[in-house]
């Protein structure tokens, strides 16, 4: 099979962009990515978006964004898989280009959270839960994470501030990322004193929901112009998996099966073992998800994922660096863009352009995008070529 290359990356800063709508955010990221690709001409656009029909009363983003970006006429469609929408859009772009049906695909993830606030945002995000049997009981996405976290702490004797290390690592790593929403390191005391959102989940156990867009240009290796000067990064593995929306419907809710299945499939496709992965961009919308992903992928045994944050294993110089440019916790969670930001940041690492946060000698990165509490997981292995 021919190599699919990420030839261009683009992004907006994540934040409260009062002055920008969905179309403006998407266009900014797309233009950035097209320029970064050296002027490749896309034939298809895959949009990752989670909640525009709810938060912005706007559906049909494929045509809207293609037209607004000056790409009228090309094929364009929206992919929705809750928080995994960005990962799902990347995978569709990958499938289109690797199949040979599309030569150059554009992938954009975009989310506009801040046109609504408070109870309206909670109502919108709760649509990713099981509406008939979870959301009708007042379940929020934060409550879902808190239920998992409570049970996890109960079964594994995790101390009260046992998840602090995830937040500390993310915030330390965001300082050097100009696109991160919160570029400030935090201390353990700040975590300990932070506001309780849904017991035992504190505000520093969850990522802020903010606006942003990120974009990628994909093509086959042989189609890259001979004068292109960039460092090629290959999509070496791509896989997705699904599980129940409701936590109560799972046989074992403390095991993220979709994360395990999609990661192992992607690694198998890439032909690599776990110890060859140089860094892991997990889906840290909640710290408990990061812990469960570390266990599912195989970096920690069951019930021990939280300890990798405690002992520094996830740090830039640790055994498996995670959230290397701030993750969702500190860069910010921009819904359907989240999975595309992961890819943009992984490419930045593999190109050797991560500055102070550069993982020395990085050759393989794992990125994993989750929808809900891992009801969907999309995993990609990105590889530095040459």
């Amino acid at each position, binding site marked *: 099979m021919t190599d699919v290359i990420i030839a261009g990356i683009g992004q907006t800063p994540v934040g409260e962009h009062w002055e920008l709508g969905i179309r403006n955010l998407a266009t900014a990221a797309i233009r950035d990515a097209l320029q970064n690709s050296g002027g490749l001409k896309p034939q298809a656009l895959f949009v990752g978006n989670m909640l525009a029909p709810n938060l912005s009363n706007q559906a049909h983003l494929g045509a809207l964004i293609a037209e607004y970006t000056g790409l009228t006429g090309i094929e364009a469609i929206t992919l929705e898989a809750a928080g995994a929408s960005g990962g799902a859009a990347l995978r569709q772009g990958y499938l289109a280009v690797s199949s040979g049906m599309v030569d150059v695909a554009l992938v954009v993830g975009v989310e506009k959270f801040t046109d609504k606030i408070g*109870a309206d945002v909670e109502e919108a995000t709760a649509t990713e839960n099981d509406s008939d049997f979870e959301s009708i009981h*007042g379940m929020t996405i934060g409550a879902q994470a808190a239920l998992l976290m409570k049970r996890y702490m109960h079964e594994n004797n995790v101390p009260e501030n046992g998840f602090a290390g995830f937040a500390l690592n993310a915030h330390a790593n965001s300082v050097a990322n100009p696109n991160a929403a919160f570029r400030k390191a935090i201390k353990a005391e700040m975590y300990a004193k932070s506001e309780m959102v849904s*017991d035992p989940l504190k505000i520093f156990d969850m990522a802020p929901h903010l606006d942003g867009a990120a974009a990628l240009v994909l093509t086959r290796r042989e189609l890259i112009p001979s004068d292109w000067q960039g460092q090629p990064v290959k999509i070496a593995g791509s896989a997705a998996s699904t599980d129940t929306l409701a936590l109560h419907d799972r046989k074992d809710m403390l095991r993220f099966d979709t994360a395990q299945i999609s990661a192992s499939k992607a690694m198998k496709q890439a032909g690599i073992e776990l110890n060859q992965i140089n860094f892991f961009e997990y889906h840290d919308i909640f710290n408990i998800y990061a812990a469960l992903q570390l266990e599912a992928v195989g970096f920690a045994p069951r019930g021990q994922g939280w300890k990798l944050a405690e002992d520094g294993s996830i740090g830039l110089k640790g055994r498996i660096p995670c959230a290397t440019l701030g993750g969702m916790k500190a860069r910010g969670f921009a819904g359907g863009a989240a999975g595309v930001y992961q890819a943009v940041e992984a490419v930045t690492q593999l190109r050797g352009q991560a500055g102070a946060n550069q993982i020395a000698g990085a050759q393989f990165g794992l990125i994993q995008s989750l929808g809900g509490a891992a009801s969907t997981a999309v995993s990609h292995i990105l590889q530095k070529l040459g």
Partner: protein
Amino acid sequence: MEIPRHWRLKKQRYGLVGEVCPHCNHKIFPPRDVCPNCGDEAKEQFAFSGKGEVYSYTTVYEAPAGFDANAPYTVAIVKLEEGPMLTAQLTDMGEQPIQIGMSVEMVTRKMRNDGDERGVIVYGYKFRPVAQNAIAG
């Protein structure tokens, strides 16, 4: 108001009616038509006892629209004595501290206003603690 939707779910909301698989006898709630245990069709109705225990719980302070008037409230995952788990609010707790493993039973309560001027209310199941001495008696 999504009247057909709430009407459609009345047996589950008021009576905790799920399914029993005619092929492997697995008890299913919420109903899902295909048995998660054996993969065969399972549409035979089965009414659950409403007895169970708390598997996990949390308090919601920032509630979605339609629920914010009741915040804060406690959401739990309850493991029914017949096996399945479900999500529900805990109610009638008084001063009693909640613990994982505590015994609870189903009651019918107001779940939310539907926010329109007709004042239609959605009712359904919540769970309350089982009085330990009442059981002993």
